[in-house]
């Protein structure tokens, strides 16, 4: 059939309608997604899509997310892909199910399917109820079949709920402190609490631990210690005792094979020249002899996810099946990874997702789930609730890699770029077990640590990792990326909001300002003259208008206004951000404006929430954040050592969502992050009359720039 719709990857990977949709006895419909709620409102948005396709009100749709038992396998929730991929799958499945049910009803009513419409799940014919509804006819349908893609989803003009501001379903419980809101709140009857003693670095060997003194320090004479090779956990009825044991053990354990980091490793610039795999992507190196060449290097340090709550996991092994509750971002991969490390049949591991504190990438959640699993395996029949300490979270979660990005540009006589090279040094941005080159943390400490893994980064067709957003959208003859994937870094790295995009956009968009200045042009006008994509121009023009760009002064007096643009991954949402700053010894954000175009927006208010959050988080990255490395690893282990932006530092932020509902929905969770970093860089340069090339743009850097 040539009018079938191309099935998205989530659907071809889970080709059974009943993995997605189930008609419940209470006349609701349960729609399942492998994507999970990470504070981004995805559950609400997917329910809106399903309700629209099924012609149901929202209160008849419940969304089951992240269950290896009942739901589809959609790998990880990441990269702003949920609406694009899971949303498209749910839309197709629901359209097909509605069509099948309508055919079934028509058969029973002896009419044509076209004669029936659906209202609140009931079939209506000629304006009169037929006495049949979805739940009456559903039992006659076998939904264990594969979707065909032959039912056409609704046209955008027919949406009732998609495109409306729908309040988040999870928020009422969260403002009331309702029980069992987060995984961390689970306290099944008889559950025991656990904390770990972490292996300080891979390869370190625990040579001495005085268990008697740990037990004394815990205050619980019955404290149990689960020990396997270099993995140790302390288990008690009392959470406080388990915590005290871990604190004492950490300061009293003796290890051999400790690393000795000295500090320089914590800077992006340290990466240059380290062992790496080099790839050249794009146009062959051009002969630029005779052209004016401009070159500058921009860096960013390691950044922590710094989730508000430390990672936790709950596990119960009944002697046969291991059940895990986790706030990780992918339950199917977690099941496979945990089964592998614990030597269990994957069919005997069940993983359930529970809400956690937002982390915007791959933090310690999966690792804590394995920790809990290891302890549960040793204590069959007991539910183990294992939580990391705050210091443990900062010290052992994978961090977002530091980067060094050198931009080399050839200019024509008018000062416009003709050739662009973005040369990147970075460790891997995705070491999620099962999808990248990583492994679960505790597997390093067990009897047979994993051998060296081949270091990989996401491929360019999925947006790249270190190379994300390294291709300029500005008109020029040729461009290329030189990507040095650093294979031996000082610290475990993995995904954080935007992967390489914040640094690449910072480098590219700061360079654009430098080029505009050389050409004697206004930075906005310079960009617009080089952009052919109308949607790109529109977000820039709107943002500029919001910020009063036309009245932008000469700068240099401590007040600055900067602007920057990117289309996330060069294929998701378009976004521009303008930032006004005052700089004395520190950067003070005075105002932020941003316009974004994500095509069809499922829940506009939810989208604005994400855009605002991205701006604030990116401002925090750009101004304050740096993981400190010293000794065996990460030395910044609390909020004093790792400050983030606070309420008193938050400027007014105005965001607008522009763009047309006729354009397909584009992921937008991360689109403001890169432009915010770059707009801050440009605003500070405007305020100071000189540029700072290294994030964070903190007090030391400002003082150094002022004294230079």
């Amino acid at each position, binding site marked *: 059939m040539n009018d079938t719709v191309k099935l998205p990857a989530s659907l071809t990977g889970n080709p059974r309608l009943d993995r997605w949709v189930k008609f419940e006895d209470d006349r609701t419909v349960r729609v399942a997604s492998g994507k999970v709620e990470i504070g981004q409102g995805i559950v609400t948005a997917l329910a809106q899509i399903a309700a629209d396709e099924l012609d149901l009100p929202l209160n008849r749709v419940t969304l089951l997310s992240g269950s290896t038992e009942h739901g589809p396998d959609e790998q990880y929730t990441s990269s702003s892909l949920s609406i694009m991929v899971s949303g498209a799958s749910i839309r197709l499945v629901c359209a097909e199910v509605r069509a099948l049910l309508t055919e079934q009803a028509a058969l029973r009513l002896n009419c044509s399917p076209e004669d029936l419409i659906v209202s609140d799940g009931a079939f209506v014919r000629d304006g009169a109820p037929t006495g049949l509804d979805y739940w009456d006819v559903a039992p006659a349908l076998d939904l264990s079949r594969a979707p065909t893609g032959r039912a056409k989803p609704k046209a955008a003009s027919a949406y009732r709920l998609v495109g409306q501001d729908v*309040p988040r379903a999870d928020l009422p419980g969260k*403002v009331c402190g309702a029980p069992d809101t987060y995984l961390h709140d689970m306290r099944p009857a008889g559950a025991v609490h656990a904390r770990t003693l972490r292996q300080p670095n891979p390869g370190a060997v625990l040579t001495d631990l005085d268990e008697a003194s740990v037990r004394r320090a815990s205050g619980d004479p019955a404290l149990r210690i689960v020990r396997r090779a270099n993995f140790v956990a302390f288990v008690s009825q*009392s959470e*406080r005792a388990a915590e005290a044991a871990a604190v004492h053990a950490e300061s009293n354990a003796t290890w051999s094979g400790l690393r000795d980091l000295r500090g320089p490793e914590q800077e992006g610039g340290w990466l240059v020249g380290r062992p790496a795999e080099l790839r050249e992507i794009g146009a062959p190196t051009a002969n630029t002899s005779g052209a004016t060449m401009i070159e500058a290097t921009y860096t960013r340090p390691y950044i922590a996810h710094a989730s508000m709550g430390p990672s936790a996991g709950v596990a119960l092994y009944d002697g046969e099946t291991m059940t895990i509750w986790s706030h990780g971002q992918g339950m199917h991969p977690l099941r496979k990874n945990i089964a592998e490390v614990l030597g269990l049949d994957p069919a005997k591991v069940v993983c359930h997702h529970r809400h956690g504190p937002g982390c915007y990438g791959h933090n310690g959640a999966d690792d804590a789930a394995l920790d809990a699993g290891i302890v549960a395996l040793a204590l069959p029949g007991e539910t183990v609730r294992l939580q990391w300490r705050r210091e443990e979270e900062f010290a052992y979660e994978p961090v977002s890699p530091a980067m060094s990005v050198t931009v080399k540009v050839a200019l024509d006589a008018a000062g416009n770029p003709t050739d662009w090279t973005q040369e990147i040094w970075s460790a891997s941005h995705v070491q999620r077990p099962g999808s990248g080159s990583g492994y679960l943390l505790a597997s390093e400490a067990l009897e047979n640590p994993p051998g060296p893994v081949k270091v990989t980064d996401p491929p360019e067709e999925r947006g790249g990792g270190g190379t994300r957003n390294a291709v300029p959208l500005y008109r020029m003859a040729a461009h290329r990326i030189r990507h040095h994937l650093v294979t031996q870094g000082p610290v475990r790295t993995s995904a954080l909001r935007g992967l390489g995009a914040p640094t690449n956009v910072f480098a590219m968009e700061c360079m654009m300002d430098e080029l505009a200045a050389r050409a004697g042009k206004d930075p906005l006008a310079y960009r617009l003259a080089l952009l052919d994509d109308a949607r790109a121009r529109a977000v820039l023009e709107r943002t500029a208008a919001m910020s009063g760009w036309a009245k932008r002064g000469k700068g240099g007096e401590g007040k600055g206004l900067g602007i920057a643009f990117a289309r996330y991954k060069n294929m998701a949402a378009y976004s521009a951000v303008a930032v006004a700053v005052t700089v004395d010894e520190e950067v003070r954000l005075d105002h932020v404006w941003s316009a974004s175009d994500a095509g069809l927006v499922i829940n506009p208010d939810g989208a604005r929430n994400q855009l605002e959050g991205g701006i*604030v988080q990116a401002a925090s990255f750009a101004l304050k954040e740096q993981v400190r490395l010293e000794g065996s690893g990460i030395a910044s282990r609390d909020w004093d050592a790792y400050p983030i932006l606070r309420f008193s530092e938050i400027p007014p932020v105005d965001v607008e969502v522009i763009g047309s509902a006729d354009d397909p929905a584009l992921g937008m969770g991360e689109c403001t992050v890169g432009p915010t970093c770059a707009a801050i860089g440009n605003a500070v340069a405007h305020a100071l009359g000189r540029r700072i090339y290294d994030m964070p743009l903190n007090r030391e850097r400002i003082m150094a720039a002022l004294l230079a």
Partner: protein
Amino acid sequence: MSGSNTLTVNGKAFSLPDHVTPDTPLLDILRNTLGLTGTRFGCGLEQCGACMVLVDGQPVQACNAALDSVAGKAVTTIEGLAGPDGKLHPLQQAFLDEQAGQCGYCLSGILMAAKALLDRNPAPSRTEIAAALDANLCRCGSHIRILKAVERAAATLRAEG
């Protein structure tokens, strides 16, 4: 057998079991003894505000407040913010109206800090709200909506008189 320690939370007096000692942190008692898990553990270091509760109306970080420091005082937690009839406090309603929050992990502590502010200053400026919330961290960047929500709640409370 219940021990000699008692604690008043959200207007109810609890007598605490023997394993709770005068130096037990309030947060541990709330979450593990009383089952009031709405107050969050964030750091245990008095650095993040996730564990904020009110003690005699003052915002206190419960993670390091020992039981004996709150003995005889009235503790209010997020579970005690809504009315006894379940009617949301204007702050909670304002947070819903503004959709202020993403993951929501920080919200219990922030709501309690905001309650303490509005109790002593019914008409705070944006700067005063930010100052009152400065001990509370939020990783999701929900600050903008949270500030608006506190302003909205203040207006509601003033209108209600």
